Structure formats: C-alpha cells, structure tokens
C-alpha cells in the first residue's frame, strides 16, 4: 500500500480546517430569538417590544398582586393564604427576603428597563415612521414614570433609572421623594406631549380598546403626582383636562364599571392568559367555601353607608362553617368565559373626580369640591353631602375614596401614607403588628447586597 496519498490528504484536511476555522464557529443567532438591532428596525417589531411590557404586567398579575399586598398590609383585606410570604405581608412583618415583595420590585424595574430600551432603540433607529416613534416614546415615558411612581410609594427612596446601561443603573443612587417626583412629573409631561388622545391598535391605527396609555392616562398620573407634591392647582388642571373629555363618563351600571367597553376606563390591560378575562376576576370569583386568597375586611364592609349600591355590587357575602366571608367582587367574569369582556383596569374616571375634589378643597374651592364628591356619591345611589368645613370635606373625600377605589391598585395604601393617616388607622386594625416603619416595604435583600450604597428602609 502506498502511504503518501493518505498523508497528503490528512495534511490537506488539517490545513483546510485551519483556514475555515472562523467560518466553522459562525452559528448565527438562535432561531427562536431576534437581536436588538432587528427589533427596532421596523414599526411592527418596535411596537412588539413596547407591547411586551403590558403583556408581562397582565401575565404576572401586577395589578392583582399590588392590590393584595397593599390591601392585606392595610385595612382593606383579610389574608387567607397559608403562604409564609403572604402571611408576612398581611402581618406587616415583611423581611427583606420576602419573595413577593422582591418580585414586585424586580418586575417594576424590568418594565423600566424595557421602557428605556424602547426609548433608546426608537431614538437611534432609522427605520421607524414618525408616528410610531412618537407613540412608542410617549408610552415608554409613561411606563417609566408609572413604575417609578409606585416604587416610590412602596419602597421610599429609590434610584430613578433613565438608561439601560447597567454600569450606570447598578450604581445609581437612591433619591428622596422630593427629588423623584419632579422626575416623574417631567417624564409624564413628555409622555403627555407625545401621546395623542386616541387609543391605538397594534398596527398604530386608532382602536376602541383602551389597553395602551393615551394622553389622558398621562394626565391622570400627572394629577396624581401633583397631589404628592401638593401642587393643588396643577392637580386640578390636569384632572380637569381629562374630565372635560366627552369620551369618558361614569358608568351608571356599577356591575359593568370594569368592562372593556366601559366609558369610565382610561387605561386597562388586555387579558393575555388563556381562559382568563381580568387576572383578578379569574382568581377571586366567590365560591361556597372559605376564600382561598383574600376577603374584604369586616370594618371596610361596615363603613359603607346604608343604601350604598357599591356594597352590594362590589362585595359578595357567603357563609361557610358558620363564618361570614366578604368576597372582593369588582370583577365579575371568572375563568373560561366564552369571550373577553372585562379587563384589568388601572386608571378610571371616578378617581379623577376624587383627585379634583381633593385639589379643589385644598385650594379652599369647597363648593366645587363638594360637587365632585357628590357626583361619585350620586352614582353609588347615595344622597349628596352638604358639608361646610374644609376638614370635613377632606375627610369625606378620603372616606369616599376608600369605598369607591377599594381593592384597586393600592389606592387606599397610598392615601393612608400620603395623608399621614396610617399611624392613626393601622394600629386599630393590626394591633401590635403595626409599627410606623411598616409604611414602607423593605428594599429587597438582593438589591441591598448588590447595590453599593443602597440604604435599607428604617425598621428592616
């Protein structure tokens, strides 16, 4: 046998392989993913990047979770879950390791990251139409402000992130409320200027579903933020700008306030989980047994005035083992309904009346304030109030907010803390479990461990 051909072939093989090395290692991106560059190169994919935030908000049940955490931690809801993390929240005994609170923190910051990546991607991209760019940037500023606003309210001093670059955000220092609110307001103003009044579909054509924020969603959040900065005049003006819109009106049927076609809705999340309408509706439908997760506290039920239609429309009463349970029942559509009719509602018109009422009262515009309050009372079937002092009116507004907005995205919790009522109200409910520092949740332990200079809230 002649060996030379073998040797020659072998050497050729080695040589060839050395030449084609670089090529051999090219595997391209995985087939199931897009790269950042391609995402922002066209309108459709860029919109898809923004929609991901809403998908995840609804999929993770953020509104439901926030409602339950803040509701059980405050004076709204009883906890029936045996989970240790849920119990700790209900007992105002939260540790920095609490995984529920930890995932609330990290998911809100993840939405902020995504909003920032949309802002960066749409700014640098050449392939987008102007209309889409404005729409997406307006939404991104809105989401960024919205998430920071709730982070501030739950966790106190937090970092305000405006870039995706982790080398910046991982060392971003905490800021106080007085530093954060102007940034939130500035983002909301930008958002309001970029967004139009119309709601849009996924192809950026005008749509009927109010499942992405528009100009007035931004205005509502602005009005809300001005309450915190005590800029009453501005708060009133922003609320005014929304209340004047004919596209919004209070829904006269209390059973249908949270419907997708409800005229009261300003911003909703579209259902994403198969079989679910709203997340809360899917999990909280009354049964003939003990509630599995939560129920409405007796003292909240007792605080409804006689004749208040909201008591019978939004709470369902059952008895099990001779114990009475009050089901939180604002969302009426449970699982596996034939069609999608009821969506998770994040912002609705009723709140704007109450924001304006408070802003007006604070400016001593007592009569207009009372008018706003009575509009909400009237819709619930209650007689108008004729209070005279500012203090009485303000107290009536807070009480009204409690019965109007209970179980809705931590509204009560925010009011208790903002108006310094928590330390008076909460000890009556929670007894020795309550301490003043419970007004803020602990910053998650991983954040403390990994974020240089991060200071934990007092009491944790």
């Amino acid at each position, binding site marked *: 046998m002649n060996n030379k051909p073998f040797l020659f072939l072998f050497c050729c093989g080695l040589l060839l392989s050395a030449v084609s090395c670089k090529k051999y290692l090219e595997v391209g991106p995985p087939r199931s993913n897009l790269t950042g560059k391609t995402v922002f190169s066209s309108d459709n994919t860029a919109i898809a990047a923004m929609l991901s935030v809403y998908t995840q908000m609804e999929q993770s049940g953020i509104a439901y979770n926030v409602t339950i955490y803040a509701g059980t931690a405050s004076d709204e809801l009883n906890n029936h879950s045996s989970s240790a993390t849920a119990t700790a929240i209900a007992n105002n005994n939260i540790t920095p390791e609490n995984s529920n609170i930890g995932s609330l923190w990290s998911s809100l910051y993840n939405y902020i990251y995504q909003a920032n990546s949309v802002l960066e991607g749409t700014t640098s991209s050449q392939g987008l139409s102007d209309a889409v760019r404005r729409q997406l940037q307006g939404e991104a500023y809105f989401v960024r402000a919205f998430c920071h606003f709730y982070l501030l309210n739950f966790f106190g001093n937090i970092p305000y992130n405006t870039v995706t670059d982790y080398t910046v955000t991982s060392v971003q220092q905490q800021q106080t409320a007085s530093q954060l609110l102007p940034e939130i307001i500035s983002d909301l103003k930008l958002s309001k200027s970029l967004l139009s009044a119309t709601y849009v579909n996924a192809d950026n054509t005008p749509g009927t579903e109010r499942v992405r924020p528009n100009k007035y969603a931004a205005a509502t959040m602005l009005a809300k933020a001005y309450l915190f900065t005590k800029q009453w005049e501005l708060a009133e003006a922003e609320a005014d700008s929304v209340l004047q819109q004919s596209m919004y009106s209070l829904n006269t049927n209390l059973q249908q306030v949270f419907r997708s076609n409800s005229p009261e809705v300003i911003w909703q999340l579209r259902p994403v989980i198969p079989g679910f309408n709203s997340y809360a509706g899917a999990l909280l439908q009354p049964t003939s047994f003990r509630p599995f997760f939560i129920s409405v506290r007796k003292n909240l039920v007792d605080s409804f005035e006689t004749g208040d239609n909201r008591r019978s429309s939004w709470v369902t009463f059952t008895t099990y083992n001779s114990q009475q349970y009050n089901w939180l029942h604002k969302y009426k559509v449970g699982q596996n309904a034939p069609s999608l009719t009821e969506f998770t509602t994040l912002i609705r018109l009723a709140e704007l009346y109450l924001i304006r009422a408070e802003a007006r009262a604070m400016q001593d515009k007592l009569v207009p304030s009372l008018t706003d309050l009575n509009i909400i009372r009237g819709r619930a079937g209650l007689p108008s109030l004729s209070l005279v002092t500012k203090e009485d009116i303000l107290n009536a507004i807070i009480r009204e907010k409690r019965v109007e907005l209970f179980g809705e995205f931590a509204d009560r919790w925010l009011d208790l803390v903002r108006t310094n009522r928590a330390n008076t109200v909460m000890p009556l409910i929670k007894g020795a479990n309550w*301490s003043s520092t419970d007004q803020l949740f602990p910053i998650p332990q991983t954040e403390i461990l990994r974020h240089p200079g991060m200071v934990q809230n007092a009491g944790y």
Partner: protein
Amino acid sequence: MKWRGCFLFFLLSFYFITTARGQLITFSVKNERLEKVFLLIEQQSDHHFIYTTEQIEKAKPVTLSVSNEQLSSVLDKCFSGQPLLYNINEKNITVKEKKVIASQRPLRGKILDQNGNPVRGVTINIKGTPLVVASDPNGEFGFDNAPGNVTLVLTSVEIEPLERYVGDQSFVEMRVSIKVGVLDETIVIAYGKSTRRTGTGTVTSIKKEEIAKQPISNPLSILSGRVAGLQMTQVSGTPGSPYIIRLRGQNSIASGNDPLIILDGIPYPYTSLNSFFGGGIIASPLATLNPSDIESIEVLKDADATAIYGSRGANGVILITSKKAGNNATNVSVRSYLGAGKVAGRMELLNTSQYVRMRKEAFANDGLIPDASNAIDLAVWDTARYTDWQKELLGRTMMVADTKLDFSGGNQQTRFLFSAGYHGESTILPDKSFGEQKLSGSINVQHRTSDQRLQFSLTTAYSRNVTKLPINDLSGYILLAPNAPALYTPEGELNWETSTWQNPLSELRKTYRSESENLLANLTVSFKLLKELEVKAMLGYDMVRVGDHTRTPKSSFDPALPSIASAGFGNGSINTLITEPQLSYRKSVKQLQLEALAGATFQSSNRRNFSQIGSGYSSDDLLYSLASASTILSGTETDIRYRYMGVFGRLTANWKQRYLVSLNARRDGSSRYGPSNRFANFGSVGLGWIFSKEAALQKVRWLSHGKLKLSAGLTGNDQIGDYNYLDLYNANTFPYQGVIAFQPRQLFNPAFNWERVLKYEAAIDLGLFNDRLLLAANYYHNVSDNQLVQYGLPPSTGFNGILKNLPAKIQNTGIELEASAIPVKNKDWNWTTAFNITFPKNKLLRFDNLASSTYANTYVVGQSLFITKAYHSEGVDPATGYYRFTDYDRSGAISAPNDQQAIVFTGQQWFGGWQNTISYGQFSLSFLLQFTRQRYASTYLNLFGMPGTFTNQPTLVLNRWTKPGDNVAIQKYSVSGSSASTAFFYYRSSDAAFSDASFVRMKNLYLSYDFKKVADKKLNPNSCIIFLQAQNLFTISKYQSLDPETRSLMPPVKMITGGFQLSL
C-alpha cells in the same frame, strides 16, 4: 474516638506490609544439599516447599549463584538436571519425582502474551498426571511422552493461571494474560493510554470490577469517596437526582465548575434536557447511562492531564470508556441482582401531644386565642390523632433489580462484544408505580488486518430510561402537623377534611413521566503509515433525547375548590457530532522513547427544547393528549447551536525509563464567545523523574518504584451558556392586541473573554516492598483569573446579572494523599486496601473593588469562597425569650449587611475514602468507607418553619424558653409575633444555624463467594459468583438534620441487594 479507630486499623495494615518480603532472590551455594537451598529460598520469598525426605535423598547436590533473580528462574536452575520436578500452586512449591509413563506421543507448544510476545518460565502440567515442563525463553515447551486427550494447566507467578483442553493436538499455541501490577495497568488518558509508572499526569482510574460491586443507577456515583480531590454532592435522594461534582475545588465564582465529561471521545451534555420537574428535581442527563456498560472511568486532574482539552479542561476531565471486545475466547457472562432499600435518614420530630403543647404555648405567648381562622390544627382537627409522616410518606421499601448479559468472542483479527442490560428501581414513596427503568444494549466490533496496520473499531450503544415520579417532592410534607387528618376517608377516597388541608397523597396523582434515550456511535479507524507513524480518525455521534410528560388531573385537587386539569408535554434533544483526526508518531532511539501526537477536533452540537402545556381538559382520561386540551400554551423553546474546534499536539519523551517530559498545546475556538474573542491558546509542561531507577537507589531493596512529578499549565472554561454575547429578544408566550411581543432576554456583553486556570502540581509516587505498598502524595496549586461569571446585578438594573470578566483571582490548593497496599497475601488470605484523603483549601486572592461590587457581602479577600457572612447569635435572652445577636455596628438594631460579620466557613476541611477487599479462599468482602470533615453546614432551621407555627418541628425545639431566667437554646414559641419572627429570621441567617456535618458513611459493602471450584466440571465456568451488596449501610454523624450529604429532606436510600455473576 471513631476517627482514631479508623486510623489505627489503617496503621495496622502498614505493619503487615513491612513484615512481608520481596520476591527477588539472592544466594550463592556450593555443593549444598537441595534441602538447604529450599530453606534459603523460603527465607527470601513467601513460598513454601512441599517434599518428602525420600525425594531429597535422590537429589544431587547444588552449586548455584543467583543475585536478585525471580523465583521461577531460580527454581528452574535448582531443578535443572535433578530427577525431580516442581509445581507452583499459589504459595506452595510441590516437589515431585520425574516418572516415566507409557509414552504415547510428543506434544509441543508455544506460550505467548496478549501482544504475541513469548512468555518464558511458565510451568505446564498435563492435568491429572505429574508431567510438568517449563517454557523456554522462546515460550516454547514440549512433552516427549504425552498421553492422549489432555488438558494443560499453565501456571507461573507472572501470568494469570490458565487451563486449556487441547485434546490430541500435537502442537498448541496458547495466549496467556500477564499479571500486571497496579503501576503498570493501562489507564486511559486524553487521546491515548498510559500507566501509573511512566505517566506524567495525575489520573485516577476506576475499573469495571469496582463498578460491578455497587448497585447504582448513575455511573458517576461510583466516584464518591474513591477519587482524591473529587467532591461529589448529590442534590437529593430522589432517583435521577444530579450530582454536583467539583474536582480540586471551585475555580469559578458563579458558574461553570463542572468537569468535562467525555464518553468514548464524545463530550457529554452537562445541562439537563428535561422540561419539567420530576420528584422536585430536574434529572441529570447522565442518569440515562447504564453503569454496567462501562469499562473504566478516569478522572484527569492536573495541567498535564487536562491541558490538551484546552478551553474545557479547567475543571478537570472525566473520561468514561465503554466496554470493548476483549480477548478471543468466546465468553458469555450474566450478572444479576435483586434488592430492597429504605430511606437512610430520619429525624426525630414532635409527636402530637408535644406538637399541640407547642402550638398552644405559642398562641398563649402571642396573646392570641386559637380558633378556626388562625389555627385549623387546634380548632378544627382532631388533636389526639397522630401520624408519623416520615414513615407514612417516605417509609416504603424500594426495590431494585438489575441484569446484564455480555457475549463476546472472535479471533485474532475480528472480535466482538454484544451486551444488553436492564436496571429497574422503585422509590420509597407510598405508590409502587413510581421509579425508573433502564434498558441498554451495545455492540462493539473490532477488526484488524493480518499485518495489523489497519484497525477499525465501531461501538454503538443505546440506552433508554423511563422514569415515573410525582411532579413535586413529597418530602416537604414531613413538616405536616402530626395531628393532620387521615389520608383517606372511610370510603377510600382522598380525605380533604372539608378543605382544611392539602392532602399529601394528592401529590402522587400529579405525575411526571420521562422517557430518555441515548444513542452513541463511535467509529475509530487507524492506519499505520510507517512503523512509527499512525494516522487515526475518530468519528463520534451522540444523541440524547428526552420526552417528558406531566399530568395534573382534576382528581388531584380538592373537589370543593375550583381546579383545572393540565398536562405538560416536553421534548428535548441534543445531537453532537465530533470528528477528531489524529496523527501519532512513536519512535525509540537507543534509550529514548519519543511519542508525538497532533490532531484536531471539530464538534457541532445542536440542542433543542420544546414544551407545551395543555389545560382545560374535560376528563382526566384525556391528559395524555395535547389535542384534547381546550387551551394550549407553549412553554420553553430553545434551539441552540454550539460549534467548537481545536487543534492540539502532544510530545512525550521517556529517556532510560527514568526521565519523562510531556508537552501539550492546544488552540481552541468556541462559538460561545463574541466574534473577536473566539480563539485562545492553552498548554502545559509535565516532567517526571523515576528516581528509583537511579543506580544509587537500585540497591535499596524496599524501594521498588519512586517517581517525582512536576507539571504546570494553562486551561480554560467555556461553560458560560450560549449566545450570551448577543443582544437577544425573546418572544412572549401570549399575544397582546393580537401581536406576540418581544422582550429583552438579558443584559448582554459582546466582549467577554476566556476564563483561565493556571495549574501547578508537584507529586511523588512511591512503590515499596515490590509494589505491595503504593503511596502517592500530590500538592496542587491552581489559580483562576479573568473570572467570567454571571455577575449578579441589583434587580433595579432590570435584570439579575450579566456575563462579565471580573478582575478576581481564586486560588485552590490542596494535598491529596493516596495509599494502596496488599497487607496480607498468602494461600488463603488476601487483603488489599486503598485509602485516600484530600485537604482542599480555597482562597479568594484578589478582588478589586470588592466592597463596591455585588459580592461585597458574599466574599472576603483572603478567605475561602465557601463562607457565609452571618449574624452572630448570642443565644436566647433569658429575660425576653428572644434570640439576641451581636450588634456589630452598634446601631442599636440588627440589620443586614452591617451586622452580618460572623464569617462561617462552610467548606469541607478534608474528605476521602477507605476501600478494603479481604478475600479468604472463595470468599471476598469489600467495603468503602467515605468520610468528610465539615464543621459548618446549614441545619434543619433552613428546612423547617419557626417553632410555634403551623408546621412540625424536630424534638430539638423542646428545649425552649418558657419564663424569664430560662437559659435555653430555643427561643419562646410564637405563631406570628413580630419580635419572634424577626429574631427567628435573623437566627436562621446566623452562625447558630450551622452544625457539624462531618460524617463517616459505609458507602458500599460487597460480599461474594466464588463457586468456580465446586461448579460442574463440564460447565467449567470462568467465574460463578454469588454476592450481597449494601449501599449506604450506616452513617455516623452529629449533623442536626436528616442527612449530612444531601442536606435535603429527601435522604439517600439504604439498599441491600443480592445476586450472582456467571461467566462461561
């Protein structure tokens, strides 16, 4: 005390060795009586002569001078010209008279070794006659007057005894196997073979004989306790549960510390392909392999042994070699065993009266009144009922069965091996249908041309594993209150006790079933171009496929509550294709042996995972069908392509069998890195000096082998996940406004670079008393830098981390001591023992800006990576009854991280194993004791809740505070008290939550009896063994929880099996 006892026993074994003698014989006699010569030989060897005075009378006087000669050659010289013959049987030399029997015919023959070289000095006896001759230097022998129809019996101290029927042939050629000492046994190394005597790398080899002694399912579990430097930790006792394997410590801070596992030349996947949890764990892909298909497992440790694997050698390499066709004789062997097992760990938990007292005390302490809303166990459940949940849920006897059939044969040119195996085991869960079943089959065919230039070997192996487990791990339910309700209603239905509890048996209805298959094909062709030059090509293909299926039927839920039936369907596969062309050159010039190897690797792997979840079934019977689900969701979807290539070379030189040099080099490329950082160079130098061959030491008779080794080299790590350099967006699962949205998958870093490990090693190997005692001491010093890790980031960045090179250095040093010995070896008794112990040390050498990094509260420069920064517990405050902690920052309150200043070392201080085999006649007993010294390991506190809450507790909590002034270990019981919960939470993260987890475990015990001698003469088996095996027979530990090894609520199983092995 127990430790000391072990060491004493070990020292004893040394005593036996030192009293034993070598086999080389030196004497000089002149006209001496034969009897006197026998005496001289007896003094210098452990052999005894059996003779009669009559025989000695007939002997001629002897004049002979021998120096350092083998026994057989001395005997040949003594008996030459004598009217006597000798026959060596074990330690006895029987002297016989030469007799002349009726001559019938001449019989000639030749004796060759496995490689065809002649073997001299073999005693050949015609069975049933006193006729004995010895083979000459050409291996030839001859009987002038052999009877007909004979069987030859071949014996010698250097060969494995052989009995062969030759009938009436007049010329026979017989192959014998040369007995090899441990030092000269072949061990598999990277792209080649070596021996312990002349190798420069550090390699531990485990042979199939060892593997056969253990009734195991995962082949890697054989390694625990047997390999110095290798730490094995099983995650849980659930079948299929993966091992965490660390060779010589932890080189990488966050990820990628697994050794490279190579199965017949093909890198084996270390990431699981399963889509769902089974028994609370994700199964290891290695669980598919059948241990009885394995010929040997080699663990390659130092730079010299691993550098040729370049970028993947940093964490060591485990080579698994499957069984290949052996010698020519047709052989059938069957091995089978059956056994049973029970859970090996148990914790004393509170009984009902203790529990109820604890709960009531807790409520009283908190000033609460137990009622139906806050204490179902006290207010609703029967407070007199008692169930031992450990016994009820994890107390069943599991069964194991295993059978293996091998069939091999062939001739000089073509050889084959067929094998088939079955392994089945059930679990300790209260349902017989759970467990795993494994089927395997393999074919190996080898052929070589008559001139032996072209060789060809093809191996195809297939195995299939079916595992059925509940989706969730049931062990968490041992925390149930001991007065929890009955499992069944009187009607035999699951009891839900009016929706007051989650019936643990409902978990058994949520089932997981996985079918995994592994197909491996390996074709190796080699061709000798010249006498010294060989070209070789290896083509390997490995396919692992896993299909898993979960079923969550409506019947597993409380019928009173809303529930939805669902089913998961997962498919995962990985296909690896690898080509390795190699060119090797081997040349001896005078005293210099040179070996050179050059080659290349091209590997391409494609990994796919796809899963779907169906829900909303109208009937539980439809859960096997995805089409019957009203809603179908897609779960995971991955499609990963991985390409890897390298060119490598090795040069080894051996001069005078004394001086050894080995050089390795590799240039590697991996698709896991960004385009600018794909290639890197790695290499090593190994030096060896067999000093015992030096003239000065040749005279030292007790020193039979002595070698010094030094090696240094650079290896890398590419276990970093795929596509991490890309800015990727993942598709969301559900649409929004009719559109599937995309979300950023991760923070990305396009420019990360290779992580490197610099390895140094110094070692000494000693063989004493003719290699009856072998000692090895290794010191290793590895430094890894350029740490490429998933660097944990604060969640406020939007993600939890990013892949990034860290300016950090980690040093792993350690001393590994190994000793193996044959303390007793005589006619009846044989005792071999092997001991290994490792003293590892891990140290964070450098970490720039640690204080401002994400690891500020995790690591300390100068300390091990295995530390926990904990609160310092000051015990229970006798006044208040709550735990107290040291307020390091004097802030007046305890808070993280400032008060987490107590540094707890949670690593192992030393670990090892001690293996013994004692045989007496046909009995053989072997056992492996595994031991670990670890002072601090997290205890039961991290598995159980706060004492007083609605979970059961270990009886340890009875020693609690009840009134001011109590000086006790456990704080006062509480249900939900804020001070108590906070104190308990800190306590759990304090130094008090660690206990000594040192243990000694009887890992394996094997007792066998060989019936060969008493078996049917016609059947004449090679071996016929019955055996008893025991796994995890006992564990000695003070650990405050269930099991010091897994540290989970699911300890490993204690198993006893019995079986037989028949080889014909």
